[in-house]
């Protein structure tokens, strides 16, 4: 019964969180956005005391049910492991192994150091929820969007507006590779050994594991009923039950309740630990290491997958139309991060790289950064669209408080960067045509067209940017007719300020 409840809740959570990352329209967030916000690490980073305390209490009460129900990466591994177990003779394929404590606590220590030092890329690499988000955003979302585009294709022919086309594009190669490698590695680990990742690498698993040793409710082996058949050990995906010694390593038990149903003698029960027939339950000693050869193989395989997926390209348009060169990303001295991120360092310290903001950005602006320190964390660029004045979606979905919630009104006065004019690209200068598209579309009214020759008021007009009024939204850069490099582009600001 407990197992069935766990499975039902877990599947619902996994499905909804997956949909959060797939739904590019952003409508699901209104109802289920909270699921991202109760994830441990994001809640911790956003200093959401309520959620963190609740999760700690939950673990102290029931053990690591968080890992079995709420964490999408954990449930995802369970799904893989379950499929693996459906093979013939593989139902009872696990065995007890001692904990690898030095690795767990060592990684946790490194993780905390990285967190404090603001090395966002390392934090993002290990954070479990973010790894899952990355996998969905990079690997599943394109399939979802292609499916959507197919529906949009039919809808268009049926004169229906129920579906609309969305662009599918590779947002960042390094992030894609990281996601693919993580995905393959996790599948192999879960396929063979169940919850290896959660009990050796995952920093959240380590913290909660430490707490769950003291949880009030635990699965407990009744020695009087146990005949040491060892079936529970063979069924335990966390490899934490030593059937022979009648002990369970509670720091690694994810409270999946599988063992309860497996034991044919009713010797394992999930119950209050301070009951009369108290059992001797202690953590076991460290032992084996992880298979490194396998890892390197997986990395190679992941790279291969990454390389083949790159071939998919967008269709180009034609007809009696002039060809349009694609815009290229200018070299920005300071990266642009979305309004609400407050500053580069704030974002770096809080973002876990889950890609939720990237998934919901409707304007093709946000993409994961490729620079080493902020790898996988979002940054803005305007070659596909600009940061539209009415949109604050990324600030609404961010579970980690890296992009703080703002309103469109606030956004209109947050300066995230400023426009810079590049004279040698500007069409009025290059071929004397009158343009002014940047000034026409500037939502902040920061651009004025002025005669290029101060002496001659009828000379061709060029944009004059009032940096104090510019908010860095990139409308000018995006709509500038100069291609591939715009004649006006945005430089980011390290610290955002309100004007």
């Amino acid at each position: 019964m407990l197992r069935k409840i766990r499975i039902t809740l877990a599947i619902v959570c996994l499905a909804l969180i997956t949909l959060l990352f797939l739904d590019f329209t952003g409508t699901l967030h209104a109802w289920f956005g909270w699921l991202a916000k109760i994830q441990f690490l994001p809640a911790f980073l956003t200093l959401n005391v309520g959620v963190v305390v609740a999760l700690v209490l939950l673990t102290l009460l029931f053990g690591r049910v968080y890992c079995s129900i709420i964490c999408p990466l954990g449930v995802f591994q369970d799904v893989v492991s379950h499929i693996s177990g459906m093979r013939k003779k593989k139902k009872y394929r696990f065995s007890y192994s001692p904990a690898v404590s030095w690795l767990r606590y060592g990684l946790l220590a490194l993780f905390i150091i990285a967190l404090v030092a603001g090395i966002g890329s390392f934090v993002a690499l290990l954070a479990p929820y973010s790894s899952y988000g990355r996998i969905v955003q990079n690997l599943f979302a394109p399939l979802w969007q292609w499916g959507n585009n197919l529906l949009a294709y039919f809808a268009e022919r049926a004169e229906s507006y129920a579906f609309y086309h969305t662009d599918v594009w590779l947002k960042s190669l390094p992030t894609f590779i990281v996601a693919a490698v993580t995905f393959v590695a996790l599948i192999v680990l879960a396929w063979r050994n169940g919850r290896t990742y959660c009990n050796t690498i995952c920093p959240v698993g380590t913290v909660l594991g430490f707490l769950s040793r003291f949880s009030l409710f635990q699965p407990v082996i009744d020695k009087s009923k146990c005949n040491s058949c060892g079936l529970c050990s063979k069924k335990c995906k966390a490899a934490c039950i030593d059937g022979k010694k009648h002990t369970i390593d509670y720091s690694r038990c994810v409270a999946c309740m599988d063992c309860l149903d497996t034991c044919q003698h009713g010797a394992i029960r999930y119950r209050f630990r301070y009951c009369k027939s108290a059992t001797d339950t202690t953590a076991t000693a460290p032992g084996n290491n992880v298979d490194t050869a396998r890892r390197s193989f997986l990395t190679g395989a992941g790279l291969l997958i990454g390389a083949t997926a790159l071939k998919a390209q967008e269709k180009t348009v034609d007809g009696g139309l002039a060809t349009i060169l694609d815009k290229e990303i200018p070299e920005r001295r300071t990266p642009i991060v979305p309004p609400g991120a407050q500053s580069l360092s704030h974002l770096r310290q809080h973002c876990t790289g889950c890609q939720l903001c990237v998934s919901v950005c409707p304007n093709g602006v946000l993409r994961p950064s490729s620079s080493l320190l902020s790898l996988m964390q979002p940054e803005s660029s305007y070659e596909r669209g600009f940061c539209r004045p009415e949109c604050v979606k990324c600030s609404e979905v961010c579970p980690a408080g890296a992009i703080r919630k703002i309103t469109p009104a606030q956004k209109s006065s947050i300066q995230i960067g400023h426009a810079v004019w590049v004279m040698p690209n500007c069409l009025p200068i290059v071929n004397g045509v009158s343009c002014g598209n940047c000034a026409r579309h500037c939502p902040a009214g920061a651009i004025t067209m002025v005669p290029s020759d101060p002496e001659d008021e009828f000379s061709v007009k060029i944009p004059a940017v009032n940096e104090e009024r510019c908010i860095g939204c990139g409308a000018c850069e995006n709509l500038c007719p100069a291609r591939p490099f715009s004649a006006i582009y945005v430089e980011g600001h390290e610290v955002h300020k309100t004007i």
Partner: protein
Amino acid sequence: MNRRQFLSRLGAGAAVSTLALSGCAPKTGKKSDQREEIPTDRMTYRTNPKTGEKVSILGYGCMRWPTVSNGSARDTNDDIDQQAVNRLVDYAIEHGVNYFDTSPAYCKGQSERVTGIALSRHPRDKYFIATKLSNFAPATWSREASIAMYRNSLKYLQTDHIDYMLLHAIGMGNNGMKEFEERYLKNGILDFLVEERKAGRIRNLGFSYHGDIAVFDRALAEHDKYHWDFVQIQLNYLDWKHAKEINERNTNAEYLYNELYKRGIPAVIMEPLLGGRLSKVHDHVAARLKQREPERSVASWAFRFAGTFPGVLTVLSGMTYMEHLQDNLRSYAPLQPLTEEEMQFLYDTADMMMRYPTVPCNDCKYCMPCPYGIDIPSILLHYNKCVNEGNLPESKQAENYRKARRAFLVGYDRSVPKLRQADHCIGCRRCVHHCPQGIDIPKELQKINNFAEYLKQGLDLVPALRQV
């Protein structure tokens, strides 16, 4: 809704109404459409006063031949489907059409050749060929280049004489009068054509007119000198009284027609449907027309209107699809002229249509390609479609705001790729003087962009609409 769908719905509608009418009876007698087969021998003909020859009231415009991709050669770069063209030409001739109007400029220069191939399969005395001296580009203004163009037409059309030869679109351009002089007078081309007429290689000489009215008036003032055998003008029930209202530069068809009529010059009618704008009308207008003549198409009203004038020699229609051709044949074989009262009904309809702020774009694509890649006609047509379908919400409080907003924005991205939308128009104005309708294209594009921007930002729409 395009004409094709409209026709299919019409068929379905007819079937449904048949069912409804005989709903109480135990059996229904009609398997489908109640209308008779299109007759092959009942085409209405008009007489050319000079030659006495009989010209079919339906003329085939050869500027929209079908392509192998099932589109119109006007819209795509694909090759023309010669098989389909042959079939259309055969069907048209079989049903009494005998006037084929082409130009060296049509279908990216392919029209004359394709038309020539299709027509040469029929006896030369069964049809009349109309073509034009389309020397628009300054490079073709010289006498030699223009004459070469004329000789080329004879070659492509596989004939030794042109039945109806036109000076093409005089009055068009930034300075209509100057271009008229450069193209036809200073290089002696008009005199050359008059000589060719004397020699019999041109049987009728005329001109087609767009734009500057001074050029039209001047050409007619010199009628005694050149003896125009016919003149091609734009005439339809919207332009009859509203052309000037739609655009300051244009002239009401009423004036043009009457000027020709009082001189006894036969009029050839172009744009009877205004590039489809009189078939793709606002739903209210469509309902009004259908209510009156449920079994006739919306387009048929426009064709009957143009054909009703006695001074009209033929009415041109650029028919891409067999359904277009069949529908027009139904309107003209035979033509049932409109009564005074029906004419008034159409004038009232035109007044109604003027209340919907569509952009008078006929999708002729003369403005294309835009050097900055903007898909001008698609943007304007999308806007018109939204106007006609009632998807231009008047305010945020409007009942249909959400639905209309979605239809406008989603439909916009569907009709025009993002990079080719109106916000990328820089206002260089290179397109403006190419537009035969004289639309201020950059202004219209900015208006449409403002409207889209208001919808995207969810602002109240009143200021955006005031700019209309």
